[in-house]
């Protein structure tokens, strides 16, 4: 009787945890979708701040990151810096992992673990912080972010030495090279440019041709021809723009299209105790993916039982279901930007320096094995535990038995939720255009263009002041 009461209480507690965790990502997406599409970051900030339960205490880092990103889009760089710094501090605090929390995640799902962001999202935090400082004309502050991020990259490289996982970022190093150039630190600028080219060549974001040409020219100009050989860079195309060290520039940064979110993909199949696991998943295109893997080998104790002719559980089968995160992308009208600067008839086209869809897909591919191993271990453990629990609480009432068994099965089923938390407020691509100018005040006419060159949106940015040897950053978002 006591066992049944305890089991019922346990089921109620776990269900309340699950209900509070389940579907938060989907609810957050739904609430923020409209404001994001209409490019109304202030409305989105109001939604986020008035609905902290959409994040919960396990996603405080994501809460701060989302607000920081939205304030950046709104051009409120000081506020953005406050929240993004807070997100970076929380990440640092989460270095220490809670043993009880990790144990709970083994039994329930990964949503009970505090959200630590993906490595490319952490880089984006530092990148947006650098952009905030650059927007406010604080080049030194931006370089501090460069050094903070470099410590992160060093640590990622140390952990991922043996494999091809994310450990550097082409966009971050490229923008850092611009900031170093603005500070008159030519050597550091060239080193960052070198790291940028290396990172682009590793992927997943392809090296933009103009940046490769620019790097080739600058390495030669700054007496570093060996860098061109090491990076296998080719000479400039005729008619390419000539840059000087520490020149005055307007740097246009464009955010194009909606970034990806995460969804769940449901896998179902059979676990053969002490044998193997076979699970299937139907993709959106209708094709079926199958994973077959050996389950943990037959335990010694079970072998001994079989040897003595005793009953054994090995070979019994269980139906299991689990969820893995999968990428959800959104179509975007905006493909790139064309920019005209006052005082010049020339039109500049932006180039892609980061693609968050590719970054997110690479992350999922890199993390797939670890996710699968952890998820399978959790589901198998939970399945066996549920079976044992059902055996313990048999009653003399068939209806009660049915309720308890169904409740246990539903509980085990509902517990399984993929961790779909991500910062879906990031843009699909981040693009750059560099416009060399003499010191003065300018305006930019910006057109967001579709794939066929049609104009999706337009804006004029006025009163852009550029001092001697200064790089003035301007930002524009087109999420359509």
């Amino acid at each position, binding site marked *: 009787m006591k066992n049944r009461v305890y089991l019922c209480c346990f089921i109620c507690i776990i269900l309340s945890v699950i209900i509070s965790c389940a579907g938060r990502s989907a609810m957050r997406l739904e609430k923020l979708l409209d404001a994001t599409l209409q490019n109304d970051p202030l409305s989105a900030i109001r939604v986020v701040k008035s609905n902290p339960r959409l994040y919960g205490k396990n996603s405080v880092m994501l809460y701060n990151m989302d607000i920081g990103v939205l304030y950046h889009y709104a051009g409120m760089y000081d506020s953005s810096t406050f929240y993004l*710094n807070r997100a970076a501090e929380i990440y640092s605090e989460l*270095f*220490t*992992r*809670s*043993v*009880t929390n990790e144990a709970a995640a083994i039994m329930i799902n990964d949503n009970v673990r505090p959200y630590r962001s993906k490595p490319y999202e952490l880089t984006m935090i530092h990148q947006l912080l650098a952009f905030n400082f650059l927007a406010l004309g604080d080049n*030194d*502050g931006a*370089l*501090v972010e460069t*050094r*903070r991020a*470099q*410590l992160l990259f*060093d*640590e990622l490289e*140390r952990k991922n030495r043996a494999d091809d996982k994310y450990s550097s970022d082409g966009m971050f190093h490229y923008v850092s090279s611009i900031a170093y150039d603005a500070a008159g630190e030519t050597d550091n600028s060239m080193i960052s440019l070198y790291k940028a080219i290396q990172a682009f060549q590793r992927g997943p974001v392809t090296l933009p041709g103009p940046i490769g040409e620019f790097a080739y020219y600058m390495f030669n100009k700054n007496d570093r021809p060996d860098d061109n050989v090491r990076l296998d860079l080719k000479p400039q195309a005729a008619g390419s723009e000539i840059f000087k060290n520490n020149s005055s520039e307007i740097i246009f940064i464009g955010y194009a299209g909606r970034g990806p979110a995460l969804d769940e993909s449901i896998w179902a199949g059979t676990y053969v105790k002490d044998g193997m696991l076979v699970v299937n998943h139907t993709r959106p295109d209708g094709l079926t993916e199958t994973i077959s893997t050996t389950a943990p080998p037959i335990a010694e104790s079970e072998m001994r039982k079989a040897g003595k002719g005793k009953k054994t559980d090995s070979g019994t089968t269980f139906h299991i279901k689990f969820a893995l995160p999968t990428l959800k992308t959104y179509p975007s009208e905006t493909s790139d930007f064309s920019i005209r600067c006052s005082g010049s008839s020339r039109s500049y086209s932006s180039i892609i320096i980061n693609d968050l869809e590719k970054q997110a897909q690479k992350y999922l591919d890199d993390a797939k094995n670890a996710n699968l191993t952890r998820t399978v271990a959790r589901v198998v453990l939970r399945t066996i535990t549920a079976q044992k629990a059902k055996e313990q609480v048999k009653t003399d009432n068939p209806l009660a038995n049915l309720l308890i068994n169904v409740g246990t099965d539903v509980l085990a089923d509902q517990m399984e939720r993929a961790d779909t938390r991500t910062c879906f407020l990031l843009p699909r691509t981040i693009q750059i255009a560099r416009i060399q100018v003499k010191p003065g005040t300018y305006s930019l006419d910006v057109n967001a263009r579709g794939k066929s060159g049609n104009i999706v949106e337009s804006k004029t940015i006025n009163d852009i002041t550029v001092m001697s040897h200064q790089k003035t950053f301007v930002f524009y978002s087109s999420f359509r």
Partner: protein
Amino acid sequence: MFPVSKKILYWLLPVLVAGCTTKVARVQSDSTIDITGKWNDTDSRLVAEEMIKDCLSQRWLYKWESENKRPTVIVGKIVNKSHEHISVETFVKDVERALLNSGKVDFVATKTEREQLRDEKEDMAENASVQTRKDMGEETGADLMMIGTLNTIVDQEGGKAVVFYQTNMELVEIENNRKVWIGEKKIKKYVERAKTRF
């Protein structure tokens, strides 16, 4: 009598409640409390103390003292080349205050401060009485500029890090670009973060 489990709860409850309240304790402003391992007020104070002591005891002042003059200094840019956002003003202001209060050095307003003063003078030119308005073109030029850098070197693996801070401050004669004083303070920290907790 209460069952054992209820007795335990009875004694634990006040402890649990007390553990949930916010605690505030006032401490001495010069006490050393390191919480995160990042640059803090103690580091700023150590740098200021070292710079002040060194600056006032070096030979560069003799030239001015022998001519019975006080050098005029302007604070220039202290560049933060570290990996942390550090407010360098906290120790620069301490150094400025100590040098000024020593009576051996004069300071003039920085570039940003001058802009405010000039705006005020322009306003006075229009609105203040002739007897009280302050004329343009009467500013005191500085003899020396104080500049500096703050650098860090970090050696990190996992939860362990050794962080080395080096702060350098210099006095440069504006007329002939000669450096007359260089002060330096080094601080090294070992920071270890726990991998797990309960």
